[in-house]
C-alpha cells in the first residue's frame, strides 16, 4: 500500500512566504511605532466643579441642554472612568452630550496609604452624598439621575436605597448585586482566597495585583493571544492606536482603599448582604425595597467578571414598579467600548431617561 506523502516543498514555501511577510510587517511597524500616534484618552472637554480629598467631579456640558435632570455617573474604584470617554466615536459621554444630557462624572483619584481607613460608608454617605447635594444645589433640583458602573453601580444601589428622595431615576450597568453564584471565577476566588490579608499587608489593595488577577481569569487570551494579535497587526496605525489606548486604560488602575475593599469582599462577595437587604453602612441598613424610583439594569451575557446571575437579581428585590432588565450579548467592557454597542447602549439610556424627565 502506498503511503501518502507530505509535500515538504509546499511547507518550506509557506515558511519562506511567512518569513518574508513578517519581515515586511516588522519594517512597516517600525515606522508606525516611531511616528506620532493618537493614543489620548478622555478627550471630551470638561470642567472640574467639585473637589473633596482625592475625589474630583467632572462636568460635561452639552451644546444645548434638553433634559431637566442632569446625570451623575459613578464609576467603580477599579480602573478609571476614562473608559466612558475612550475616544471620539467610542464615547458614552459624547453620546449623552449629543442628546443634550448634562453629565457629571466622579473621578475617584488615586488612593494612597493615607486612604486605607476610608469605608464604603464614606464613599456612599460621604463623597457621593456630598456630590449629589452639590449638583442639586447648583441646579436647584430636589433629585438627579444616577448611573453606576460595576462596583460604582453597587454604590449607586446603596445610595438610592438610603437617599431615595434625591434620585429621580437609576441606571445600573454590569453591577454585581447578587454574589451567591459560582458562575464567575472572580466570585469563586473572592470567597476562597485570602485577599483581605493581602490588601492589609500592602496598606491598600494594589492595583497591579488586581490587574494580575484579572489577567489570570483567561491567561491564554489576555497574556498571550492578545499580544500575538498585536504583533500581527502592528503595521496598521489605526489598530496600534486603538490597542495602545486600551492598554493605557486597562493598566491605569488606582489602588483600592483597604477598608472599602475589606468590606466589599466580606459583606458582599462572602456574605452576600446587599441583595438580602442586610448590608449596613454606618448605623443604617441598605433596604432595597426603598429603591422606588425607575430602574434600568444593563448586564452582559458574556460578562466573565459580573456574570448575568450576579447582575440580574436586583430588579426583583427593589420596591420600584418601573424596572427593566437589559441583557446585551457582550462582555464586561464591550458594553461601553465596542463599536456595535455604541448604538444599543448609551442612546437607549438617553431615551429611557428622556421618558422619565417630566
Amino acid at each position, binding site marked *: 500500500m502506498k*503511503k*501518502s506523502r507530505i509535500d515538504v516543498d509546499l511547507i518550506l514555501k509557506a515558511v519562506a512566504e511567512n518569513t518574508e511577510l513578517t519581515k515586511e510587517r516588522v519594517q512597516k511597524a517600525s515606522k508606525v511605532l516611531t511616528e506620532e500616534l493618537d493614543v489620548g484618552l478622555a478627550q471630551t472637554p470638561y470642567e472640574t466643579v467639585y473637589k473633596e480629598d482625592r475625589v474630583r467631579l467632572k462636568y460635561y456640558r452639552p451644546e444645548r441642554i434638553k433634559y431637566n435632570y442632569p446625570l451623575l455617573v459613578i464609576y467603580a474604584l477599579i480602573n478609571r472612568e476614562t473608559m466612558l470617554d475612550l475616544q471620539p466615536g467610542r464615547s458614552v459621554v459624547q453620546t449623552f452630550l449629543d442628546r443634550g444630557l448634562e453629565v457629571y462624572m466622579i473621578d475617584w483619584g488615586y488612593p494612597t*496609604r*493615607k486612604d486605607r481607613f476610608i469605608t464604603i460608608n464614606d464613599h456612599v454617605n460621604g463623597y457621593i452624598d456630598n456630590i449629589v447635594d452639590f449638583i442639586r444645589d447648583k441646579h436647584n433640583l430636589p433629585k438627579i439621575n444616577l448611573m453606576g458602573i460595576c462596583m460604582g453601580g453597587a454604590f449607586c444601589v446603596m445610595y438610592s436605597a438610603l437617599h431615595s428622595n434625591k434620585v429621580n431615576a437609576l441606571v445600573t450597568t454590569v453591577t454585581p448585586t447578587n454574589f451567591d453564584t459560582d458562575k464567575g471565577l472572580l466570585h469563586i476566588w473572592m470567597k476562597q*482566597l485570602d485577599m483581605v490579608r*493581602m490588601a492589609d*499587608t*500592602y*496598606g491598600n489593595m494594589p492595583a497591579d495585583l488586581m490587574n494580575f488577577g484579572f489577567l489570570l481569569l483567561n*491567561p491564554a487570551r489576555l497574556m498571550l493571544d492578545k499580544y500575538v494579535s498585536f504583533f500581527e497587526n502592528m503595521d496598521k496605525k489605526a489598530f496600534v492606536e486603538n490597542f495602545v489606548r486600551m492598554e493605557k486604560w486597562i493598566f491605569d488602575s488606582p489602588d483600592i482603599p483597604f477598608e472599602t475593599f475589606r468590606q466589599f469582599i466580606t459583606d458582599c462577595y462572602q456574605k452576600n448582604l446587599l441583595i438580602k437587604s442586610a448590608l449596613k453602612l454606618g448605623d443604617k441598613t441598605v433596604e432595597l425595597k426603598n429603591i422606588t424610583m425607575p430602574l434600568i439594569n444593563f448586564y452582559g451575557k458574556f460578562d466573565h467578571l459580573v456574570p448575568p446571575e450576579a447582575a440580574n437579581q436586583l430588579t426583583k428585590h427593589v420596591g420600584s414598579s418601573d424596572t427593566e432588565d437589559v441583557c446585551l450579548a457582550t462582555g464586561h467592557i464591550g458594553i461601553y467600548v465596542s463599536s456595535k454597542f455604541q448604538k444599543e447602549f448609551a442612546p437607549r439610556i438617553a431615551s429611557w431617561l428622556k421618558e422619565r424627565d417630566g
Partner: protein
Amino acid sequence: MTQSEQEQTFNTNMQEWMQSAMNLWKKMSTSQQRETFFSQPKTASFTGSQKTDQFFSSAMNMFQLAMSSLLEPDNLDTNFSKSDTISSASIEILKQVTESIMELQKQWIERFVRIGQETKAYSFDDMDKELFTTWKNIYEKEFQKYFQMPTIGLFRYYQERINTAVDKYNLFSEAMGEFLYMLYVPFEKSTQIYQKELENKMSQGEFNNNFKEHYNQWIRILEGHFMSLLKSKEYTEVLNQAIQTYVHFKKAKDDVLIDLLQQVPVPTNKEMDELYKDIYDLKQTVKSLNKTIRSLTSTE
C-alpha cells in the same frame, strides 16, 4: 586514620558524589528535553521543565559553591580544626543536607521510571505534586528548625525576626514554584495534544500550510485547558497557598525593615498608619460638624 584525614576523605567523597549527582541530573535533563522535542510525548511530567531543572541545578551549584568554600584550607582551619563543637555541627548539617539531596534524587529517579504513563487532557486532578511535597517536607523537617531555634543575647529579638523572614521566604518560594508549575502545565498538555493531532494528520499525509490556523487551534486547546485548570479545586488551593505564604513573607520582611528603619530618621509605615488613622478620625468629625452646621444654617 586521624580526624583530619577522616574529614579529608569525607570531603573528597562528598565532592565526587556532588559531581556525580550533577552529571546525572544534567544527563536526565538533556534526555528528557530530547524526549519532549523529538519523540511522542508520554506524560505531563514536570521533570522536563527546563525552569525546574535550572532551579535545582542552580540550587545544586550554589550548594556546591558553598561546600567548596567550606572546604578551602583556610576555612577548614576555621571551621573544623579549632573547634570540635563546630566541626561536629557542620558534619551533622552536611549529613542532613546529603540525606535530603539523596531523598530528592530518589524521588526524581522514581519519577523517571514512571515516564510513559499518560495524563488526562483537560483534567488537573492527576497532577504530580510529589516533588513540591517532598521538597516542602524536607524543608520543614530538616531545615526549618534552624530558623526556629531559640535566639539569645542582646539582639535576640532582631535575630528572631530575621530568621522568621528567611523561613517565610523559603516557604513562599516553594509555594510560588508550585503555582508557576501549575500555570505551566496547560502549555505542556496543550502542546502534547496538538502534537498528537499533527502526528495523526501527518501519518495520513495531511498537513496544513497555514501556520495561523495551527496557532488558532493550539490557542483554543490552551484556553480550554486553562479554563479547566482555573476552575479546579487544586488550582484554588495552590493559588491560596501562594498568596498566604507571600503575605506571611511580606509581613515578616516588613517587620525586619521597620526594625532597620528605626535606626534612621524616617517614619515607618506603622507610625504613619497611626497618624493616618488620627487624621481620618479628625476629618470625619470635621465633615460631620460641617454638615450639622450647614443643616442648622439652612433651617434658620
